[in-house]
């Protein structure tokens, strides 16, 4: 994890409330990066002291001398980023957290990647990581509330067309594209359809992750979930981002999402 000043190289609107942002970084950052890791980004440009805290974002894609975030504008910090001009310099801290356990995952006979909404960001970086190295068959299931909110689907479709071992399924809550319903329904059907037991890697809204954890447990699949939490530090020192682990005792009940995660084996957590 390194601290660096990063220049906003590009910002592109994707939907009215999502955008991508490309940030310069040192080579060292790219070398250290593991899919599923995140960065803390300063949103208090121009010496404003407010908003005070950096914001956590999963890295969506690496470039030669930069990386990309996919951001949904939900509040003040993300709203400021949505307006930020190319050339602006932001302070960045990362890569942070553990990322997905690549070695473990690629050892499985099949991988199922599941993304809900903006949760596509770390899944996209994981997909690229897997495609760049050898990988078992990949099942990619993405969902959103409606067609307009689906992110990166053009690109994902292109990948799925090019890459034999990659199959893409889409779900929307309103049925405007793909399956009319939840991604978890697609996952559930896949798991019940038999065949190789996949390892599941997922990111998305908490209810989706909880449901996936249950499905995986029932099907005895391994399942890695990328979690979110408000964060003050992002590197394990504020103790602000804890969640309950399954095997904890009264004196040690927590894991830290920023440091022990954000990716967890679903089995190790007590999410509800």
């Amino acid at each position, binding site marked *: 994890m390194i601290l660096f000043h990063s220049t906003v190289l590009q910002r592109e609107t994707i939907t009215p409330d999502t955008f991508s942002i490309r940030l310069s970084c040192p080579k060292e950052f790219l070398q250290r990066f593991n899919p599923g890791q995140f960065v803390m980004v300063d949103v208090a440009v121009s010496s404003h*002291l407010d908003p*005070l805290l950096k914001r956590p974002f999963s890295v969506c894609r690496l470039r030669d001398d930069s990386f990309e975030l996919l951001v949904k504008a939900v509040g003040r910090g993300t709203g400021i980023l949505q307006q930020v001009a190319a050339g602006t310099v932001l302070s960045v801290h990362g890569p942070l957290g553990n990322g997905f356990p690549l070695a473990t995952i690629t050892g499985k006979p099949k991988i199922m990647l599941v993304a809900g909404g903006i949760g596509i960001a770390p899944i996209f970086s994981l997909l690229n990581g897997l495609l760049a190295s050898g990988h078992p068959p990949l099942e990619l299931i993405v969902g959103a509330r409606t067609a307009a909110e689906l992110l990166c689907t053009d690109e994902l479709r292109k990948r799925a067309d090019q890459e034999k071992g990659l199959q893409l399924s889409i779900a929307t809550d309103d049925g405007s594209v793909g399956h009319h319903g939840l991604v978890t329904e697609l996952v559930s059907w896949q798991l019940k359809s038999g065949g190789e037991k996949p390892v599941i890697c997922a990111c998305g809204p908490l209810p989706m992750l909880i449901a996936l954890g249950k499905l995986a447990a029932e099907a005895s699949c391994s399942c890695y979930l990328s979690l979110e*939490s*408000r964060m003050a530090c992002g590197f394990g*020192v504020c*103790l*602000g*981002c*804890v969640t309950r682990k399954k095997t904890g005792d009264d004196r040690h009940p927590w894991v830290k999402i920023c440091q022990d995660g954000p990716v967890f084996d679903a089995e190790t957590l007590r999410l509800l």
Partner: protein
Amino acid sequence: MIDLSVSLAPGLCLKNPVMTASGTFGYGREYEPYLELDQLGAVVTKGLSLLPKAGNPPPRIMETPCGMLNAIGLENIGVEAFLRDELPGLKAAKATVVVNFFGETVDEYVELAGILDREAGIDALEINISCPNVKAGGLQFGTDPEMAAGLVAAVRRQTSLPLITKLSPNVTDIAGMAVAVAEAGSDCISLINTLTGMAVDLQSGRPVLANVTGGLSGPAIKPVALRMVYQVLQKVKIPVIGIGGITSARDALEFLLVGATAVQIGTGNFVNPAVAAEIAAGIEAFLRERSISRVSEFIGSLQLPESC
């Protein structure tokens, strides 16, 4: 060469006035990727208790205007794990180590002070009195001068280590608290701990923090912290450590100007993990620019209006 050293107590001389604030610097070594621990005046550890403590359930933090609320609830690994797993590394890094600690009864505080007193490599103790006294029905030690004085006196008897008492700002009369703990034998006073605050979420209609209320820290509280340091220095002669909202060398220098012998950096460490070292360097640069050769000459040099 500019002399940045300051003395907080007999036997507690810091190489510069920049310390880290308890609970914002982990046990110290987490910051080794960002700075050299021995470049700091001192590292103050997360508050320790006799046994490990789980703290409060999440959500535990919330950003507020120019600040943040936390309700970590004093989660810590306990003194045993600290001495075993953390202290050796701090010693190896040549850090000046101040251990922040707390209990729920006077006996717990005293027992802990006794354990820490026996340990080599600890340079000072900081006693956090912003804790509920379970025996006194949950009243905070830190809001009653007599209770605070009794606690400090009891701890004082137990240890010969330099003793810093950390005051809570949630009181009517901060100077009265300071006088009480100074008379009870504290070598030094640090202030301020967090102001109690609250945040609610309109979306859910609930408090943001599981604990409902939490401690406010960050730049928002700096004016209150400066005022309390000022008021305390009118009443006590022992050194005072200024804490609250420091994120730059200029902030730190403001506390030194008012008369704080040292400062602690808290929330600022989260935003920029290298900030404590940068502040130490910034203080030096400022003094050099002013041709002030010792930081001690600058400390307390505030000029008051004639009427004061």
